[in-house]
Each structure stands twice: as C-alpha cells, then as structure tokens.
C-alpha cells in the first residue's frame, strides 16, 4: 500500500514537472512572438507619427515665415492683407501655436513604444531564466533530461547594439 502511494506520488510529480516544462516552453515561444508584435507596432507607428508631426510643424513654420516677411517690409499692409485670411483660418483652428506640445507628445509616444519592446524582451529573458533553472537544477533536471528538454538561449544582443549611441546637437 505504501509502495503504491509512493509510486503514485512519483508519477504525479513527473507528470506535473513535464507539463510545467512544456507550458514554460510554450510561453517562451509566445513571448518571442510578443516581441515581434511590439516591433511591428513600432514599425507602423513611427512613420505615421513622423508624418503627422512633420505636417504640423511645416504648417506652423509657413505661418511664422510669412509673419517674418511681413515685418521686414516697409509697407506691410499689402502683404498683411494677403496674409490675413490665412492667419484667420490658422487662429480659428489653433488658438495658439502648439509645436512644443506636438513634439513632446511625439517624444512620449517614442519612449512608450521602446518601453513596450523592452518589457516584451524582459518577459522572454525572465521566462527563459525560469525554464533554464528548472532544466538544470535537481530534481527537475532528471525529468528534463529524460524527456530531452534543452536550455533556451533567451535573448541575445548583437555587438553593434551594445555600443552607446553618441548624442550631438
């Protein structure tokens, strides 16, 4: 009777550990997909953001340029008359020029998207570490060995990615 209970306990342990390792592997695979997913989001997001910010900034630059030209003229009234309808449209749709806010929103979006990629990599790193610990530590390594589970390499950074980017203004 005791042997039977001991045997049952061992079988339950082996099955549980096997299932654990299999589900960890599945979650590692899913986390790699998640990294791809976040990278794709970034790829789609950045050009759109860039285009909309550029569009806005150009529009603002044009207004400022026209105003500067008007200031330089000896008799600006003619230019102002030409400029006024345009300015009115601008003022109506934009109570104040808000280039700074648009750029700061862009920076926030950029930080967020790179954070998302970083955190999805983090998930892969943590899951691989959990899995590798199970594969190599006793007694789970016996079961991992018996069923041919191998260590995962996790996330690797290429040499060129390790260089600190230089910032110049």
């Amino acid at each position: 009777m005791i042997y039977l209970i001991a045997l049952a306990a061992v079988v339950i342990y082996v099955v549980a550990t096997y299932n654990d390792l299999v589900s960890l592997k599945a979650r590692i695979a899913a986390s790699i997909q998640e990294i791809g997913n976040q990278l794709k989001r970034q790829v789609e997001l950045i050009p759109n953001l860039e285009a909309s910010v550029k569009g806005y900034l150009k529009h603002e630059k044009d207004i400022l340029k026209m105003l500067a030209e008007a200031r330089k003229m000896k008799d600006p009234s003619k230019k102002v008359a030409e400029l006024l309808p345009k300015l009115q449209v601008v003022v109506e749709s934009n109570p104040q020029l808000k280039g700074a806010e648009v750029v700061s929103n862009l920076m926030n979006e950029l930080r967020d998207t790179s954070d998302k990629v970083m955190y999805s990599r983090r998930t892969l790193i943590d899951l691989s570490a959990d899995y590798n610990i199970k594969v190599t530590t006793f007694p789970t390594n016996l079961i991992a060995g018996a069923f041919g589970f191998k260590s995962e390499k996790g996330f690797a950074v290429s040499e060129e990615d390790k260089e600190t980017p230089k910032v110049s203004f």
Partner: protein
Amino acid sequence: MINVFESVESNKHKSWLVVAGFVGFVLAASYLMARGMAAYYGYESTGLEFLGLGLVISGVMSFASYYFSDRVVLGISGATPANRKKDFLFYTVAENMALAAGMPVPKLYKIDDTAMNAFATGRDPQHAAICATTGLLTKLNRTELEGVIGHEMSHIANYDTRLMSIVTILVGLLDLLGDWLLRSTFWGRRSRDDEDKSSGGLFLVLGLFMAVISPVIAQIIQLAISRRREFLADASSVKLTRQPSGLISALKKLGADKEPLEASNRATAHLYIVDPFKGLAKLFNTHPSLTERIKALESMA
C-alpha cells in the same frame, strides 16, 4: 545587498509564515471557543456546529465584498474611467507593467483628488482594476509612476485581494464565536455539567478568555499580513521595472505629501499604496512606514 529575485522569494516566505501563524491561531482559538461552548451546554452539543455556522455567516458577509471588490470599491471611491488620450502616461505605463507581469491590462480609473495615492482591487487578474488620483498622475514622472503602478500590478498578480478576503472571513469567524460565547454565558442557562466537571470548567474558562482576546490578536495578525504584502508588492514592483530608484523617489514624494485623501475611509484604507490616514501606532497600521519600505528598496538598489 540582495538581488530582486531573492528579495521577492524571501518576502513570499515571510508572508506565508505569517499567514500560517494566523491560520494556526484561528484554529486554536476557534477550537477552544467551541470546546468552551460545548462545556457550557453540558455536552449536548460538540460546539462544532457553532464553528460551521460562524464560518458560513462570516463567509457570506465577506463574499460579496470579495467577488464584487472591483465594482464596490470603485463605487465608494467615486472613480471615473481613464482613457489613453487624456491620461497617456497612466494608460501606457499600466499597459507596459501588464506586459512585464504577463497579465491582461486591468481596468484603469482615476479619482479627481489632489492628494497623491493609488490602489488596486479585483478578485483575479481578469477582474482587476487600478485606480490613481489625479494628484499622483500629475506629480510623478514616468519612472516613478512605473514603480507605483508596478506595485499595484503586483498586488493583483499576487492575489492579495483574495488573501485579505480569506483573512477577513477568519477574523469575522472569531468575532462571531467570541460574541456568541460571551452572550450565551451572560444571558443563558447554566447546564448540569455532570460529566468531566473539571476539564469542562477549564475549557469554559479558556474559551471565555479566547472570546475576549482572540478578535484583537486576530486583527493585529491581519494587519501584520497586510504589511508583509506591501513589502512583497514593493519587491515585485522592482522585479518588473528593475529600477528601485523610481519607486523610492515616488514613495518619498508620497511621504512629503501631507494632504489626506477625502475619498478614502477605514474600509478601503488597506488598499492604497500609502496609508491615506497617516500616523497611528505601528502595530495597528495597514502599511509599513515609508522609511522601512525605502530602506528595503535601497537594499535592492
């Protein structure tokens, strides 16, 4: 200096030790009170039916607050849903922390109050909500907010609402048993305890003693569990962000903010990231002191 994984593990162990001590205490106290009642009624009853009845009543009373915790608490606190456009920082930080914790993004709410605070609630990660005050959202930068949201996210991932509900049920059980025993000996008939007179008397005395002191002791242990879970959530938050400095600086800002939160009350105090009342004896606090928490975080930094 310990790394963040060791810190999370050691906090988990300490927390389970306190919980195990609590369960042991509840078992011993309710056993003694049940025996006391049995002795009082002259062994017509074993006292166990009182135990069962107490558990059912206490369970039913706490179940609704557990099961509907996300809706009830948000209703009390007067919170409104947050959206991505208006609360970009809050929304995206919560998305990223959920990504790091490997769980769905909780429902996000904000309370319109200039005091700085935040809380998490919900019975499991699928029915969870995180709520922050507008004061917190405007005064913290992104790194600090990640620390705070990571802390709340960890409460959800560690099933703290579930744990505290079970603890509340057990504290309620001791309250009920103690109350019944005191009332029945005060008003009730004295039985003919013909058999086993001396041990019956002993259990009655022990039971009465427990009836008086166990609700107080149980509450003190409940608060100790709550404080342990705060340390665990701090450590788990650092495990998500890997930047203890963010949470440290957020806690310092929260500590410097002396404004009390109008939307909180006794019933919801234990939920918040910092005690919304501030001050009170250490033993009766739902949260460890900020200096202790900052010290624990700095040991990981």
